[in-house]
């Protein structure tokens, strides 16, 4: 088995011990296509109300308030994007009924049929499975979303997993955590005793273990297993058990430019600038904003970032100048690739030999002593 790397972390970047809330955004911006048909009956919307559907995905209002207009703004990639602007009235009027009679549903065999009311979720993935694997690990350095979720909601996550196991007749549930995530392990250990169908699996802190291909090296992940992240399970719990539509996300705001990195709960659609002004202090003003990862993230402008469900972490890193130099033929890029791609070959061929099995984990570029952006070559994106 190929030896995987551990990404070394700066010990001084340590996240604050509680979740901070920023749920009072004045305006909420939800990405919309001008051709999408608004499904609202009046301009005043309630929290959890279906606003529109885009590519079969329903968009619900995270706040109650007034729909103002569709406006054009830049998105985190710097491209133009239309957003539906909702003015928050801070009333939090919630219209979502969710799935009623949950307690009876829980023991009912037609659970799958009932939860069809829960939108946009692929329930078919639970059919005829033997094992549920909870992926409670974070690959990207300094991200603590899952750790905090486990710390505050371990009981709820385990309860939901148990329900899923019961309903879909899945006999085994494996909870996976990284060996250095002591907080998650200890919290889960306190509750796991009441669930005989669940077991704990402690895995090494290697990158990118969150990927299914890599996870399968440490435990059998096959067609008979379904892998769920802690966030996914918790969202299911909120929607099905608590009957609440997902209106907020946890994001880690971290980096070497901030004084205290924090995990913040934010309403979906909140401009990042607003969250940062309200919650963060900076050591250095000369920083760059990186979204979703130091190894596979994108650099972005803080004014352009609107919190969406796909944003998990925002890094504020002090700007460093790195120079790309000529390849020294060390071969480490080939050596570290977890799926045995050949970044070196891709580099030699100037992107003409790309590898489609590439996970885009960024390890080849991370290890390169010449700072060559090998991810571009292997993905055939080199110009």
């Amino acid at each position, binding site marked *: 088995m190929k030896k995987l*790397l551990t*990404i*070394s972390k700066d010990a001084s970047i340590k996240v604050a011990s509680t979740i901070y809330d920023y749920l009072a955004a004045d305006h909420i911006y939800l990405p919309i296509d001008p051709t999408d048909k608004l499904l609202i009956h009046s301009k005043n919307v309630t929290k959890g109300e279906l606003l529109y559907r885009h590519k079969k995905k329903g968009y619900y209002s995270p706040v109650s308030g007034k729909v103002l207009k569709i406006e054009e703004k830049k998105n985190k990639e710097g491209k133009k994007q239309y957003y539906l602007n909702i003015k928050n009235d801070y009333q939090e009027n919630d219209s979502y009924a969710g799935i009623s009679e949950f307690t009876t549903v829980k023991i009912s065999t037609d659970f799958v049929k009932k939860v069809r009311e829960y939108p946009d979720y692929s329930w078919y993935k639970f059919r005829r499975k033997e094992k549920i694997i909870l992926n409670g690990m974070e690959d990207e*350095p300094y991200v603590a979303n899952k750790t905090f979720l486990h710390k505050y909601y371990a009981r709820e996550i385990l309860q939901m997993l148990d329900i899923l196991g019961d309903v879909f007749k899945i006999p085994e549930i494996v909870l996976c955590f990284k060996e250095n995530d002591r907080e998650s392990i200890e919290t889960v250990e306190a509750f796991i005793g009441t669930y005989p169908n669940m077991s704990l699996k402690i895995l090494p802190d290697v990158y990118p273990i969150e990927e299914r291909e890599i996870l399968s090296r440490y435990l059998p992940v096959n067609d008979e297993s379904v892998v769920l992240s802690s966030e996914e399970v918790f969202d299911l719990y909120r929607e099905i058990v608590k009957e609440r539509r997902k209106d907020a996300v946890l994001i880690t705001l971290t980096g070497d430019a901030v004084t205290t990195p924090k995990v913040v709960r934010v309403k979906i659609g909140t401009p990042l600038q607003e969250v940062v002004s309200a919650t963060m202090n900076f050591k250095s003003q000369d920083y*760059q904003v*990186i979204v979703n*990862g*130091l*190894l*596979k*993230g*994108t*650099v972005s402008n803080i004014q352009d970032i609107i919190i969406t469900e796909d944003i998990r972490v925002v*890094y504020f*890193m002090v700007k460093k100048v*790195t120079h790309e130099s*000529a*390849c*020294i*033929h*060390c*071969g*480490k890029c*080939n*050596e570290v690739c977890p799926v045995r*791609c*050949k970044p*070196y*070959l891709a580099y*030699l*061929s*100037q992107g*003409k*030999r*790309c*590898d*489609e*099995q590439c996970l*885009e984990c*960024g390890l080849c*570029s*991370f*290890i*390169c*002593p010449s*700072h060559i*952006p090998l*991810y*571009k070559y292997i993905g*055939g*994106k080199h110009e």
Partner: protein
Amino acid sequence: MSKVFVYFEQNTKKIQWAIFGSFLVLAFYGAYKNGFTYYFQGLLSFVDAMKFLLFPFIGLLGAFFYGVILSKKLQFSLEYAIEGVLLALFMPVRFPIWCFIVLVILYFGLKNLWQKKLSTISLLCFMKVLSMVLSKFVFFIDYQNVIETSYPYLYGITDAFFGRGVGAYGTTSIFLILVCYVAFCSDYYYKRELPVYILGSFLLLETAYVLFVTHENLLLTLLNSHIFFASIVLAPMKNHSPAESKYLLIFGLFVGIGSFLLNAFFDFSDGIYIVLLFAQILWTLALSFQKLYYQKTLVKQKD
């Protein structure tokens, strides 16, 4: 487009100090073995014994001036210092000092241009081959020091291992070279398998040759300090050997077998430097062809 914002960092300064320190130990051992032991025996004057320290000193001086000219400020660059001392280490003991000074000037003078045009061929290796040619055909000297040429000597396996044998200025102690290997291994980018390939193939063939053909003292024949020094110090240097593991194996076997052939049939105990240079030239050519070939067609590899 996604990008990498964090890079693997190793403590380069610490590694460079470890390498520089181990090279200094080799250099001081060279001065001790070739000068001070004879001084203590009353065979050499103190001044003559001290002369051996000139080799690393000149190398360091060359490195210092190169660093000053390059950076235009007084600074001591460990990277250049390592190269300066390395130049001294593989010189024959009786190599004229003035000629060594010329070689040092030539090395640092050519360094920039060489790195631009021939970065995959080791300039150090080229300098060594040049010094070998000069020693053999201009100065007519071998690796023996003045005393070894005058007195009959007898040494055993432990002597050869710990460095009493005949060899270049700083390469006689195989024990210290192996210590250098440990220091090199702390560098994540050091190709630690290459010395194994070279030494493995060389020692295997040499053993067979000695056992079945020459019937000489096996261990004494195997303890060839040039092979150990070149395979551990020179061959795995960054940029001068293939990156892919299968080509690295071929490269290592080529150097190992080539060194054996030159050692066994042409009595070139230091033939490894010639083979290494030749292997680097061949690899450079192969790399150019490989690049041209790969850049012609778009190939998407699937699972």
